């Protein structure tokens, strides 16, 4: 078993996940498998297609009061306890054990499930929603960039971080509602960034989220512009750009809708319409600095 400090809590995993080493492995001696027998509930599972380990696979999420069972063909079954602080492996599929007491390693497919749907569901059980987004910090202001793939979320975050801003997230930003504000959680693996680029290295565990920016494309020869986004459009953007919703059950979907509504009421939001040209980025930066 390995325990990592992620998104404000210790979460135990069935074995070592190298991508999470930066989050402080506390214990990696034993493989964690669930000791209780589990009978799937009578209700049908939530099913979704997911790209995992280079292949599209069907994922099943069986919800019960005891927790969530995740099943994928060819992979181990994982069980997420209520509260989302423990992810266990029910039947161990392919585990490589290096010799001499080295940490147990998890195969690629299982790792992609653990770092993807399993972790996202575990966070959702704690009311933390994983936005498919990049995010940056300028002064005391944190801005999240939402948008479809290819709209320049990572490019913009990388450009701004090279211009003195701080990158908070590259691909996934966990976000939750607190009593007075909305929190962006920084201690989460950004899998497309190198270990030395991980935002966790320079940031506190959580930051207040101040602005939302929805990226959309403009014609290549046009100038970028920034417009206010209505609260209704913010809800739509959050519903569309949250990871893992295809495997949420109705209870999680209802909570997620309330989250999106709360964020839309509290956070000013903008639509950034920009051409995908590098020479337009300085003007984009100026726009963003003005709203910070």
């Amino acid at each position: 078993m390995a325990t990592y400090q992620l998104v404000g809590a210790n979460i135990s995993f069935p074995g070592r996940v190298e991508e999470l080493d930066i989050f402080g492995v506390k214990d990696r001696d034993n493989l964690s498998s669930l000791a209780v027998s589990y009978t799937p509930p009578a209700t049908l599972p939530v099913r979704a297609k997911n790209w995992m380990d280079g292949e599209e696979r069907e994922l099943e999420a069986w919800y019960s009061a005891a927790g969530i069972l995740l099943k994928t063909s060819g992979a181990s079954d994982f069980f997420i306890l209520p509260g989302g602080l423990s992810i266990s492996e029910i039947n161990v599929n392919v585990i490589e054990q290096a010799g001499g007491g080295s940490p147990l390693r998890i195969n690629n497919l299982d790792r992609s499930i653990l770092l993807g749907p399993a972790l996202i569901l575990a966070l959702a059980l704690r009311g933390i929603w994983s936005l498919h987004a990049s995010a940056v910090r300028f002064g005391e202001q944190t801005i999240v960039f939402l948008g479809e793939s290819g709209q320049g979320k990572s490019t913009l975050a990388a450009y701004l971080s090279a211009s003195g801003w701080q990158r908070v997230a590259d691909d996934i930003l966990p976000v939750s509602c607190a009593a007075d504000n909305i929190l962006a959680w920084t201690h989460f693996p950004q899998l497309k960034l190198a270990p030395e680029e991980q935002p966790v290295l320079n940031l506190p565990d959580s930051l207040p989220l101040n602005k939302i920016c929805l990226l959309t494309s403009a014609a290549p020869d046009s100038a970028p512009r920034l417009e206010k986004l209505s609260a209704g459009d913010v809800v739509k953007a959050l519903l569309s750009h949250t990871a893992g919703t295809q495997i949420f059950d109705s209870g999680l979907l209802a909570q997620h809708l309330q989250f999106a509504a709360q964020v839309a009421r509290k956070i000013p939001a903008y639509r950034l319409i920009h051409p995908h040209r590098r020479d337009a980025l300085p003007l984009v930066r100026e726009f963003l600095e003005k709203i910070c």
Partner: protein
Amino acid sequence: MLTLDSKLHIPASVSFSVVGQDAFLLNTQTNKYFALEKVGARLWEFLNEGKQLHEGYRKLLEEYQVEAVQLEKDVLELINQLKENGLVEIV
């Protein structure tokens, strides 16, 4: 047949949130979202407050500059769509 005098009920399986001028509805039986804008969202607010359909219709007539006949047609069409998607029930 649905009329403005029909009595409606929002089932417990519908979760919703009103944000600005929009209402977002989730049917937890089908896990499908629906969005209502402006007039539709306002009507939903009235129904959620326990107002009957004809009361909601009258309120909309007061609040919006719209022909009564056109509004009746639009309201009944919307309620039919909500009913088909399990978001309201006729009692």
